[in-house]
């Protein structure tokens, strides 16, 4: 449930679902997000769900924060069977060409390469949110023995498709972009496709992701 709602500036409201980051809390965020998306409330211009927050922007010509907060308080969640069991199988190539930070991860975690990848490949990860850049999924939680901090100095260019880990999270760079996550592999699969307006994002909040290892040859074949 929403613990607190406040304004964020004069044209957005900030719904706080509590400080805990868990699937359970995130399911609540997603339920509110989906219900609001279906309701199409006049004046709402954007919805930004994250681990434990939902930010809603609105057109100040049409509605103000007070009216919108009231609507959120009165909101009845859609009565449907909320489905959080979509599973996406994503190939990952861990060739040294792609695993840019595997030495660092190994040093920081005191695990050898094999053990690190066993941790990644053996666990189903949950997608909490997508964003920062288009379609980038924020996945978690990884096993505790591979938790580590971001790079001290972020990379200016992280290659597209890179799979990175930081703290209990894992993400996939959908575009070449700057970034500070520890890169351990690369996926040839298109996670974001701007030409699919109806369904541009492969991994959605609430989905689960299972990585499986592929060779460089298979990587290049999928990439074609």
């Amino acid at each position: 449930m929403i613990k607190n709602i406040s304004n964020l500036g004069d044209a957005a409201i900030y719904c706080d679902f509590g400080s805990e980051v868990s699937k359970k809390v995130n399911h609540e965020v997603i339920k509110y997000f989906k219900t609001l998306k279906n309701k199409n409330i006049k004046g709402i211009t954007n919805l930004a769900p994250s681990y434990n927050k939902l930010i809603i922007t609105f057109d100040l010509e049409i509605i103000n924060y007070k009216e919108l907060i009231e609507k959120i308080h009165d909101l009845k969640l859609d009565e449907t069977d909320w489905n959080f069991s979509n599973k996406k199988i994503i190939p990952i190539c861990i060739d040294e060409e792609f695993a840019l930070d595997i030495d660092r991860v190994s040093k920081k975690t005191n695990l050898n390469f094999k053990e690190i990848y066993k941790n990644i490949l053996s666990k189903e990860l949950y997608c909490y949110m997508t964003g920062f850049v288009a379609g980038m999924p924020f996945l978690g939680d990884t096993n505790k023995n591979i938790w580590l901090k971001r790079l001290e100095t972020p990379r200016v260019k992280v290659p597209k498709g890179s799979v990175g880990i930081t703290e209990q999270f894992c993400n996939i760079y959908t575009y070449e972009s700057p970034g500070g996550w520890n890169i351990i592999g690369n996926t040839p699969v298109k996670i974001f496709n701007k030409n699919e307006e109806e369904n541009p994002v492969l991994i959605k909040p609430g989905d689960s992701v299972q990585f499986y290892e592929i060779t460089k040859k298979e990587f290049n074949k999928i990439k074609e």
Partner: protein
Amino acid sequence: MSIKVIRPGLNTTFQDRGRSNFYHIGIPFSGAMDTRNFLITNKLVGNDLNDAVLEFALQGPKLKINENNINCVVTGNVDFTVKKNSKIYKGDCYKTFSLNTDDEIDIISTNNSMYGYFAISGGFKLEKKWNSYSTHLKSKLGPNNGNKIIEHDNLQLNRNQKPVNKKEINYVNSKIEFIRVIKGTNFDYFSSKSHKSFLDSQYQVTNLTDRMGMRLEGDKLENIKSENIKSEGLIKGAIQVPPDGKPIIMLSDHGTIGGYPKIAVIISADYDKIVQLPPLSKIKFKMIDIKDAEKIFRLYSMETKNILDQI
């Protein structure tokens, strides 16, 4: 029916009022940075108020016309010249003018400001992408395959170039003394000394400013609680403070998720003004409450309407 790009300028893109409803997959609003000037531009050339215009930053494009009787306009604080029959004339902003085949327009620079706009009656021939003509460079979304215009591009024009009356308006882009803000959700993460610095000292716009954000230089803001928050949504106008203590203002093309505390948010009515501040400008913030912010927005919005009604 086209215009040839002789020189593209530094960052020239097609923009309309922006793209809603895609924050949740990582796509920000984008759209013309200075909404008021954008609306004035379209009104002056008789186009739909949300039609696409060319937005340029600092240095604008140089364009050659391949068609007769093109009615166009430049807005902002902009120095530009027009070449007609080998003669060069200085151009006036906010005043429509016509161009014919082989004429050229050279948008030299914005003057003590960031953004300017160029539009033609009847509009550019473009396709909407995801419900908008706005270009978002980062996700390569929008007209021109989501890219800036480049040298040798041929910008296509709509065929129905309707005859329109010459129009002009006397508009002055006023400077404001203060940028007004509302407390952010993490205001209390900062020391009282930092609250004082934020509100009493001056900040300077650095060179690290673009359509995504604006980095400021000035008194370091000291976070006494936690330097990172759990990553969450961002909005345009939010002021984030990373561990180095230097504020970053999120602008129209911002990343949609961020993990730095938000000390404040710029009020909607001052957004058009802040985006126009070029590097080295000085900023002073002033904290107001949300009731006042709403009142100021209503006045600003009414003023915009009045300006448009005069055209």
